[in-house]
């Protein structure tokens, strides 16, 4: 029998698995990672426009300072803190720690709240 014809477990999103906090945090780690790659385009834009001279720098500051720019940067900040916090959670798992269900749930809540609090803290400090 060809190995290709063997049955596969169903895709994680769908009616087959009950959503759990740990599984939602897991896919969010991926989603924020991919979103951060796209968001990094903003950082490249900012640096390149700054390198082109003061006029272009002011232009980029205006674009990023607009309502839409600020909204993107706010979401980008949260995605960054989430990926950072959950990344540290992953590093502890890589070291073989925190695998018990109650520990994984507890560290998951830490990730959720620390990412939200750090995001608001940053924007309170950097507010215009």
């Amino acid at each position, binding site marked *: 029998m*060809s*190995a*290709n014809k063997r049955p596969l477990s169903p895709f994680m999103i769908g009616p087959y698995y009950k959503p759990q906090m740990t599984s939602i945090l897991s896919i969010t780690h*991926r989603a924020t*990672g*991919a979103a*951060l*790659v796209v968001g*990094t*385009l903003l*950082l*490249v834009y900012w*640096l*390149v426009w*700054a*390198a082109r*001279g*003061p006029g272009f*720098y*002011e232009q980029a*500051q205006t674009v990023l*300072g607009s309502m839409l720019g600020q909204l993107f940067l706010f979401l980008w*900040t949260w995605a*960054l803190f989430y990926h*950072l916090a959950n*990344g*540290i959670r*992953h*590093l502890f798992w*890589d070291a073989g720690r925190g695998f018990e269900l109650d520990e994984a749930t507890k560290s998951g809540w830490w990730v959720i709240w620390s990412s939200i609090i750090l995001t608001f803290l*940053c924007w309170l*400090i*950097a507010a*215009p």
Partner: protein
Amino acid sequence: MSIRTPLGFVRGLGSAKDGTHHWWMQRVTSVALVPLVLWFVISLLSVSRVDYATFQQWLSNPIRAGLMVALLATVFYHANLGMQVIYEDYVRPECKKFIAVLATQFVLFVLGAISIVAVLKIALA
């Protein structure tokens, strides 16, 4: 079509000897990114709304420019490793996966090069 199983094709060829390299470099870059990202965020809190002269002055410090280059190089490397895993999990068939991985590698490498040159240009101006 062949009646040989996928395992039969590779048996006897030996391992590629780089099985854990991708996984390990993802961890190395993530450990490096923890302090770099914290430095970056704290720095941006102070220079996100300053005028050009102040920003140029800030980045002309070689330690800051060096950390910025290190951050960019590590970020784009880490991004490339992460995107590759996402494609490998979701993109089929093999040829589309291959193109997606290769295209992302090229784009991220160029973006990394551009942003690093931009930082150096500002820092050395």
